[in-house]
C-alpha cells in the first residue's frame, strides 16, 4: 500500500501537468509543450519564497502562482500569439519547445544545476493510512490535485465560460462568430494554467526537489497521462496521471530501479497503438 501511495503522489504531479495541458488545449487548441516547465519554475519560485525570502506559506504560494501566471502570459504573447491564424500549423511545435528550453536554461543560469530542497510545509511525520505510510504533504498533493481536476471538469461542463471554452476549442471561427472572445479565452487559459502550476510549486517541490530539468520527465509523463486519458478530457487526464504514477511506482518496486521509465514507455506505445484517442477520448472526425 505504501507503493500505491507513492505512485498516487507522483501520479498527482503528472495529473497536474496533464490538467495544465488540457486547460490550454481546450481553450485555444494549442498544445503548450512548455507547461511542464511552468511547473518547474513554480518549484523554484516556491523555493525562492520559502527559503531565500523566508516567507510564510500563503505569500509563498501567492508569489509562485502570480509569478508563473505572468511567465505563462509572456510565453503566450511571445511564442503562441504571433502564430495564431497562420495556415502552417507546425509553428507551435517549434516555438513551445523553444519557450520550454529557454525556461530550462534560465532556471539553470539563475538557480544552478544542482537540485534544491523545497521545504515541506506540513509536518514530516509519516501517516499510516489504509495499511501504507505516506507523508502528509503527499496526501495534500493528492487531495488538492483531485479537487482541482474534478473542479475544472465540472467547471468546463457546467458554466458558461467553460462551455464557451469547449466551443472555441472545437471551432475558433464559429465560436468567434457566436460572440465568444476567443483571444481572451486563450489568454485567460494560459493565465489560469500558469497560476495553478505556480500554486502547486510548493507541494510539487517538496516531493521532487527544484531542479532545472524537472520539466523533461514531467512533460513526458504528463503527455502519457493525456495519451491514456484522451486529449481534452480533464477527468481522463486526472485518471491518466494517477495511472502513470502507479505504473511507475510498481515497476520501480518490483522490476528494478532502471526499469520504470522503460515500462511507462511500453505502456505509452501500447496505448498509442491500440487506442490512439486514449481510453476516455472520443473519436473526432476531421473536417474539410
Amino acid at each position, binding site marked *: 500500500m505504501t507503493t500505491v501511495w507513492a505512485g498516487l503522489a507522483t501520479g498527482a504531479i503528472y495529473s497536474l501537468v496533464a490538467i495544465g495541458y488540457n486547460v490550454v488545449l481546450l481553450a485555444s487548441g494549442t498544445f503548450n509543450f512548455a507547461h511542464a516547465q511552468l511547473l518547474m519554475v513554480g518549484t523554484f519560485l516556491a523555493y525562492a519564497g520559502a527559503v531565500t525570502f523566508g516567507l510564510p506559506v500563503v505569500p509563498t504560494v501567492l508569489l509562485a502562482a502570480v509569478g508563473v501566471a505572468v511567465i505563462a502570459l509572456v510565453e503566450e504573447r511571445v511564442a503562441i500569439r504571433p502564430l495564431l491564424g497562420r495556415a502552417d500549423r507546425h509553428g507551435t511545435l517549434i516555438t513551445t519547445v523553444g519557450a520550454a528550453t*529557454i525556461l530550462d*536554461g534560465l532556471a539553470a543560469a539563475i538557480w544552478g544545476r544542482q537540485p534544491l530542497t523545497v521545504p515541506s510545509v506540513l509536518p514530516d511525520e509519516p501517516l499510516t493510512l489504509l495499511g501504507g505510510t505516506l507523508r502528509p504533504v503527499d496526501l495534500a498533493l493528492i487531495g488538492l490535485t483531485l479537487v482541482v481536476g474534478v473542479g475544472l471538469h465540472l467547471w468546463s461542463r457546467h458554466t458558461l465560460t467553460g462551455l464557451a471554452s469547449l466551443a472555441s476549442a472545437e471551432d475558433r471561427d464559429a465560436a468567434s462568430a457566436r460572440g465568444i472572445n476567443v483571444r481572451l479565452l486563450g489568454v485567460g487559459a494560459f493565465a489560469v494554467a500558469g497560476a495553478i502550476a505556480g500554486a502547486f510549486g510548493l507541494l510539487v517541490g517538496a516531493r521532487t526537489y527544484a531542479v532545472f530539468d524537472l520539466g523533461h520527465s514531467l512533460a*513526458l509523463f504528463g503527455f502519457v497521462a493525456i495519451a491514456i486519458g484522451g486529449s481534452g478530457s480533464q477527468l481522463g487526464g486526472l485518471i491518466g496521471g494517477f495511472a502513470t504514477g502507479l505504473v511507475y511506482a510498481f515497476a520501480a518496486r518490483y522490476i528494478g530501479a532502471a526499469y520504470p521509465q522503460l515500462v511507462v514507455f511500453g505502456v505509452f*506505445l501500447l496505448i498509442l*497503438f491500440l487506442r490512439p484517442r486514449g481510453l476516455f477520448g472520443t473519436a473526432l472526425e476531421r473536417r*474539410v
Partner: protein
Amino acid sequence: MNALIHRFRPLGALLLLVLLLIAPGAGLVNGYWSRTIMLIAILSLLVSGLNVVLGYAGELAMGQVALYAVGAYVAGYLGVAFGVTNVLVALAAATLAAVVVGLITGIPGLRLGGWSLAMVTFFLVTLVPNLVDIFADFTGGTLGMGTAVPTLFGMEIVGDRLYWLIILVVVGWFAVARNLLLSRHGNMFLVLRQSPILASVLGVSVYRLRLLVYVVGAIPAALAGALFSMLDGFIAPDTFTFALALSVLAASVVGGATSVYGAIAGAVVMQLGQQTFTQFQTWQLVIYGAFLLIAGIAFNRGLAGLAQDGLAAARRRGWLPTLPPASAAAAPVDDEPAARLEPLRGVLLRTEGLSKSFGGNRALDDVSIEARPGEVTALIGPNGSGKTTLLNLICGLYQPSGGRLFLGDEQIGGQPPYRIARHGVARTFQTPLIPKNMTTLAFVATGRYVTHKVGILPAILRLPKFRRGYAADDEQAMALLRLVGIGDVAGRQVDALALGTRRLVEVARSLASGARVFCFDEVGSGLDASDIAVLEQAIGMIREAGGTVILVEHNFPLVLKLADRIHVLSQGRLLASGTPAQIQADRRVLAEYTGAADGGDDGAAESVTDLEASEGPAVPKGAK
C-alpha cells in the same frame, strides 16, 4: 527553391569536394580544424535526418540523438564483441538498427501525428541512459566502452583515411537526400506537410508515407553515430543528451528545415558556436531556445531561405545570370491549347440511403443519388443542406453512419480516403488546398503520384525510368494547365496564385490522375467571368471524354448550363431530382429557395432562375 538546387553546378560541387578531401593531406587545415570538419559533417547528418522529417513531412522527431546512440553502440559492439571492424558492415548494421528502431517507435507514434511522435521520440532520448545501464554487459554501462580500430579491406581507417570516409559517407547521404527530396516524392512529402487531407485524396496513405519519411530520416542519424564511434574510439552515455537533441533541432531550424543543404549551414553554426564561445555552455539552453523561438516565428525558412532570397534579389538586379524558366525543357513548344482530353473511363457512382450523423445532428439523411459517366450531376441546396457532407462521404473523408456507396458494382462506402482515391475518385476543395514551396506544374504533377508511380530507388539513383516518368509527368501537367487556360503560370509558385487560378489548378490536378469520377466542390465560386467560361469548357470536356462529374455549386445559371441532372438537397434530405428543366419548374425547390409556402404561387418569381440572388454573394455578376 527547387530551381536553384536543380541548377547547382555539379562541377563546382565536385571541385569543392576534392578540395575538402585533400585539405588535411595538403596541409590546408591542421588537426583541430580537420576534427572540427568531421564533427560538422557528423552533426549535419543528424540535422539532415531531422530536416527530412520536420521540414518535409511536418512531423517533429526529437529522437535523432537516440538513433545516434543506437548507431554508435551497434557499430562499437560489433567491433568489440565479434571483431567485425569493417566499416561497411558497421554502417550497414547501423542502418538496419535505425530502421528497426524507427519502425518500433514510428508505428505507434505516427498513429495520431502532431505531438505524439514528438513525445515518443523525446521519450526515447531520455531512455538512452536507462537502456545503456540495463544492457551494461554490452555497452559498458555508464563508464562507457572503447571501440576497436575500424578497418576496410585490411587497411586501418584512422587519420586521413577516417576523414575521407566521414566526408564521403556524408556526401553520399546528401546526394541520396537531394535526389529523394527534389523529386515527386519530396513534393508529396510537402503536400503531406501542408495538408494530410489533400495527400489522402491524392491516393496516398498518410500513415504509411509518414512512417516512410520518419524511417528514412532515422538512417542518417544512425550512420552519424557509427562514424562518431570511429572518430572518438570511445562511447559513453553522457554524449547522447537532451541538450544535443535540442542543438540538432536548433541547427535544423537555423539552417532551414525545408531545404537539403540547410542542414550543413545549421551544423556549421552550432558546431562553431559551441567551440568558439566559452560562455556557450552556461547559456547553451537559452541560446537554443531563442533560436527555436525566433526561427519558428520570424524566419521559418532559416539560412537556406535567406540565401535563396539573396540569390533571387541578385538575379533581379542583374548581378547574376537569370535562370531559364523552370522546366521549360519539359514543356512542348507549341502554344496551341490542347483541344481535348484523352478518353476517361467514367463509371457510375451510386449512393443508397447514405446517412451521416454528427452526434445528434443528422447532417445527411437517407440520400440516394446516381451520377452517370459522361454526364454532369449537380448537387444544389442552401448552405447547410448537406452538399459538402455528401461529397466528403463519397471521398471517404467521413465514415457513413448508414447506407451504401457504389462505384460501378463495388461497394466502397467506409473505405479510407486514399483507397477511394485509388478507385479513381478525384476532388477539389471549396477552399483550394495548395502547398507551399512548389511550382504550379509540380503541384499538378502530384496528381499522378499514385497512378503513374516512380519508385523511390529510381528517384534516388536518377535512373532512366525516373527521368522518363518525370518528363511524362511534366508534359501531361503542362498540357492540363493549358487545357484550363493557365499554361502561363506553370513555373510560378503555386501558393502565390490568386483564388480563381487556384481553383483551375485544382481542376487540372484532379485531371492529372486520370480519374473516373470528379467531385468539384463549389469550383465556380470566386471566379470571374472569363475563368468561369474556361471552367465550363473544361467540365464540358470531361463530360465529352466520358468522365463522371459531380458538381456542388451555388452558381445556378452555371448549374443549369452544365448539368445533365440535378439533385436538390435540403436539411440533409433529398428534396428533388431531375433534369434542369424539371428542377426549374419544381414548386418545392422554389419554396425552399424563397421560403414561400409549399406550392404557393403568390410570389413574384416565376422560376428558380430568377432567385439566384437568394444564394447571396456566391454568384458572380458576370456569370448571368
